Every structure is written in structure tokens, then in C-alpha cells.
């Protein structure tokens, strides 16, 4: 055993020496995830993006990541560590990393930073986000067409603007087909608890919903739909393997193309802090293949997707707030600032927003 170990040590030592000598002229790009990459959801999709970067740029780039980083002092340390270890471009993928990234970016002016879903920028800190609400409008239309009871069950994690925006967009889409469409909402207070998500789905189905939408990460709710022979939508990644007969489509995050372009820019020396909000037209928000629905519904969904890719915003007036007061006039389009801080419902949502 001891001999084997020594042999292993010497060979791997030689290998790692060779590797580090070679690494000098590569650009090191690094990621910080808030969850485990094994969540098959949000962090998993970001890591898929990282892997795409490795594949596309090959030996021009070296990547590293820290997973399961808690939002707080651990985040400060994570960014500082990566900056000190020679990462030239660092992506922070969770809203909660915002202040940590701002602090560390000031300390390391030569390192390039990018932060997902936040709103603070700096000389070497850019932000990026995806317009998931665009996809949710399409989901709403499909739900209204496919639902027999006219009630959808909506499983949500936490009342942050991103989630509220999604509920509103979904309802606007559904109401454009069926003005009386209703959604029952359950907050599970977790991004990720398969058991609780499954239980929430069952409760919603039992109360008369026949289609399930989720803003949580696991495949559990769809699996319940599959068992009950009802329908639902996937989230973050394509979950068709888990619910071949139940998934209508899935709202997926595709960070790869964006990451590749940013790392390439860093290699070329053309990187500048940016403030981008990518949507369907950029390929960052994708709807998985439409399945388990008649052709006319599919055609409608594809048409809406095209319309949105062409620049139409689902938040185009006239839209009233939940209490009936006017929000957007006819033809008026919501500005990004309002959307990013959204903390009110539009008319027709049957829930009280936790305040």
C-alpha cells in the first residue's frame, strides 16, 4: 500500500508540475455558485455554462469554481480567494453575492467581475441577467389553452422581484387566452426541497388545479403530474426525462453562449463592464421542445415566442394592478427598473403578496 501511494504521489506530482507550467498563458475564468452543482437546477445550469466555455475555448482557458458558497462573509472570502489565485474573470451567480462582489471588485481593480441578477455595477464589475418572464408569458398561454378547469397551480420559492415578475407575466399570458384564468399559489420557502415541492403539487392538484407551474428547482412536481396523468412545465433544465407524458415544455437557462462571449472578450482584451438583460432573442432563455399538446397550441406558442424574440415585451399596457388601479397605459411598456424591483401583482392574481 505504502509503495503504491508513493508511486502515485510521484507521478501525480510530476503531472501537476507540468500542468502548472503550461497554465501560465491561459486565461483563468472562475465561478461562484450558491448551491451544489448537483441540484440539477439553477447552479447546475450555470456550471453547464462553465463546461461549455471549457469545450468551446479549449486550451485558451482554465476554469475553476466554488460551490455551495453561503451568502455572507463566506462569499467575501470566496471572491477574494479566486481573485488572489489568479482568476482574471470571475462570475458570481447569485443575487446574494452582490455586496461581497462589489467590495472585492474594488480591492482588485485588475480583475474582471460579473454578477448575475443584481443591480450594482463598478469600473470592473458588470452585471447580467436573463428575462425569464418572457418565457413565462408563453407558459401562461399554453396553460390557459390546455387547462380544463381553468386553474393552474403555481409553486414558488421566495417573494423576490424575479419570482413576482414571473407570476405576473404568466398570468398576463394566461389571461390573454382566458380572461377568467386563475392560479393558486403556494410558497414553499425553499429553492430546493423535492419532498415539499411534490407535496405542494399534490395539494394544488387536489384543490382543482390541473396544470402545474414552478419557480423552484427540482423535478418533483412534474413527476407528480406524470403520476396523476396531468401536465406541467419544467424549470431551469429540460426535465422531459422525468416526465415524458406530463411536461408541456420547460423554461431553461442557457448561460453558455453568454459565458463564452465574455471569456472570449477577456482573452481578446476587449472586456468592459456591461449591464445586460438577456432574453429569448439572445438564446439565454429557451423553451424546451413543445410536447404533449395539440398542433394548434404548439403553433400559438411558437408564434408568441417569435413575437417576443422580435422585441415585443409581455409587460405592454394596458395593464392594471391587482387592486384594479391603472399601472401601464395602452401601448406603454414597463421600464426595466420597475420590473427588476417588482413587488406588486397585476390584476387577476389570486394571492396576497407577502409584504
Amino acid at each position, binding site marked *: 500500500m505504502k509503495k503504491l501511494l508513493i508511486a502515485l504521489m510521484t507521478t501525480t506530482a510530476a503531472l501537476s508540475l507540468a500542468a502548472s507550467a503550461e497554465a501560465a498563458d491561459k486565461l483563468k475564468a472562475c465561478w461562484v455558485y450558491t448551491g451544489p452543482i448537483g441540484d440539477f437546477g439553477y447552479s447546475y445550469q450555470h456550471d453547464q455554462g462553465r463546461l461549455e466555455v471549457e469545450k468551446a475555448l479549449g486550451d485558451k482557458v482554465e476554469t475553476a469554481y466554488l460551490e455551495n458558497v453561503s451568502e455572507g462573509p463566506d462569499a467575501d472570502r470566496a471572491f477574494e480567494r479566486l481573485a488572489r489565485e489568479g482568476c482574471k474573470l470571475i462570475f458570481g451567480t447569485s443575487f446574494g453575492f452582490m455586496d461581497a462582489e462589489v467590495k472585492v471588485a474594488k480591492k482588485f481593480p485588475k480583475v474582471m467581475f460579473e454578477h448575475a441578477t443584481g443591480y450594482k455595477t463598478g469600473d470592473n464589475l458588470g452585471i447580467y441577467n436573463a428575462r425569464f418572464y418572457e418565457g413565462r408569458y408563453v407558459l401562461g398561454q399554453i396553460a390557459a389553452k390546455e387547462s380544463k378547469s381553468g386553474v393552474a397551480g403555481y409553486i414558488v420559492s421566495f417573494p423576490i422581484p424575479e419570482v413576482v415578475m414571473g407570476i405576473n407575466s404568466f398570468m398576463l399570458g394566461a389571461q390573454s387566452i382566458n380572461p377568467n384564468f386563475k392560479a393558486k*399559489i403556494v410558497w414553499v*420557502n425553499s429553492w430546493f426541497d423535492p419532498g415539499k415541492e411534490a407535496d405542494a403539487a399534490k395539494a394544488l392538484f387536489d384543490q382543482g388545479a390541473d396544470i402545474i407551474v414552478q419557480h423552484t428547482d427540482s423535478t418533483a412536481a412534474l413527476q407528480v403530474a406524470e403520476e396523476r396523468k396531468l401536465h406541467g412545465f419544467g424549470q431551469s433544465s429540460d426535465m422531459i426525462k*422525468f416526465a415524458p407524458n406530463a411536461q408541456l415544455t420547460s423554461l431553461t437557462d442557457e448561460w453558455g453562449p453568454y459565458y463564452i462571449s465574455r471569456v472570449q472578450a477577456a482573452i481578446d482584451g476587449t472586456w468592459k463592464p456591461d449591464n445586460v438583460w438577456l432574453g429569448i432573442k439572445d438564446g439565454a432563455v429557451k423553451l424546451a421542445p413543445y410536447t404533449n399538446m395539440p398542433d394548434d397550441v404548439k403553433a400559438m406558442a411558437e408564434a408568441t415566442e417569435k413575437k417576443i424574440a422580435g422585441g415585443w415585451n409581455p409587460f405592454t399596457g394596458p395593464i392594471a394592478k391587482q387592486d384594479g388601479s391603472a399601472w401601464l397605459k395602452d401601448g406603454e411598456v414597463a421600464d426595466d427598473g420597475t420590473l427588476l424591483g417588482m413587488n406588486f401583482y397585476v390584476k387577476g392574481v389570486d394571492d396576497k403578496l407577502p409584504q
Partner: protein
Amino acid sequence: MDITVNILLTIATAATPLLIAAIGELVVERSGVLNLGVEGMMIMGAVGGFGAGYLTGSPWLGLLAAIVMGAVFSLLFAVMTLSLATNQVATGLSLTLLGLGLSGMIGTSFVGQPGVRLPNLDIPGLSSIPVVGKLLFGQDPVFYISIALTAAVMWFLFKTRTGLTLRSIGDSHASAHALGIKVIRYRYLSVIFGGACAGLAGGHLSLVYTPQWVENMTAGRGWIALALVVFASWRPWRVLAGAYIFGAVWIGQLHAQAFGIPVPSQMLSSLPYLATVVVLVLISRNKRLTMMNTPASLGQPFVPDR
């Protein structure tokens, strides 16, 4: 009527893993050992069960693997606390830490793979009787195992000689030892039984409840199982009742939300925990009753002297 049946079925599914893990821990604690590693053994069972089911295609082999995984993992705790007399609280917590890490490592390649699901019981004729048919004859196999297990443990602890011996060890390992009872051997077997149960509960999660593997998928259920044992003041039928009450509160809060009751969701989410505290208080107020059932040497290390 249909909705009532459905809700009852949902509660049964939510209660089953809690019941199984708690029944196992009950036996362990009755023998005088406190194993706080239930969460760790459960997640090991979940990953083992999913993995075996996924690789062989047989959910039954998966279930078997879950049991074996939990039992083997609990052996680590047994060696530490029983043979080396380490502190049970610290060792149990370490076991949970180790289980969460190890299961994540083992399960890396299972992420994003659809697993196999244990089919529900389907007895022609019986399962389709309205209302009771589905409740009595149409649930998943682990549900029946959990009920049978509870009955078996009840019979074993209170109706057999070995069960009596086991309880006497929990009450006073010193006098049991003086009577020539093999304290350590009994405890080894109890801990392994507890591990097997926790593993089975984990297997239920990854093969029935939500047939998939994801890290940390037990999401604190092992801790609830531990609470249930005390909640039940170490009596099997009360564990059964407790698991179903907890399941009902758990499912009930989701229904309350879907129904649109205007209460902050955080408050509804904390209801099961508050309910546990309240019931614990109500039960423990009766001092005589708790004293009678609490294994007196619970958590104390035992080293036979000769």
C-alpha cells in the same frame, strides 16, 4: 370525497419515511443509545437506493440496497460509541456531516437521471373499491412495510423476552450487565436495526416519494424523526400517531396556502415545528408518564468492567 382520499394518501406518503426512521431510532433509544446521525444514515440510504435501482433497473433491489447502506453506515457509529465509548451526541452529529458529504460524492453521476419508482400495490377488485380501496389496497409497498414494522416493534418490545431484555438495558445498563446480559451486543444490533430503518426511509424518498437523486434531498427529515421519538415518549403506536399528525400539519399548511388563507407563508411553514413543541410540552407535562417510558441510561456510554 375524492379530494379527502387524495389528501389522506398524500399524508400517508409524507408520514411514511418519518415513521420508519423514527421506529428504528425508537429501538435504538430504548436500548439506551442516542444516535443523532439519522439524517446522515437516511441520505446514505437515499443515494444507495437510487443508485442500485438506477443501475439494475429494479426498484426492489434499490430498496434492499438502501437498507443495507443505512445499516452499514450505522455500523460506523456503533463501533465508535459502543466499542470506543465516544460521546454519542458528537459522534451522531459527525455521522450526519459525513453522510451528507459522502452521499454527495457517491451520487455525482446520478444527478439529472430519472430513476425507477416502486409501483403501487394493485390488487384487482380490491384496489378499485370506492374510497377505502385506494387507501387500504392501493398504496406503495413501503407504506405497508411501515405499518407492519410498527406492529412488529410493538410486539417485540412489549411481548417478547428479548424485547424486555432490550428495554432493561436501556433503563440500566449496569444492572443488565450484572445479570449477565450482553449489553454491547444488544446495542450493536439495535443501532444496526436503526440504521437499516433510516436507510429504508431514505430509500422511500428516492424510490417512491420523489424518484430522483439530488444532494441533501432528505432536507431535515431525519431530525423530525428524532423529534417524533421523544414526542411519542418512546412508545411505537404514538410514533405512528405522531408521524401522521406531523404529516397532516405539513400537508395542511400547503392546502391552506393553495386555498388562499392570508397568513404569511413563513408562519405556515413553521407550524409543523411549533406544533411539535406544543405537543412535546403537553406530553411531558405528565411527569410520571414520561419518567416511566424514558430509557434512564439514554446517551450514557457503557463500558463493561471485568
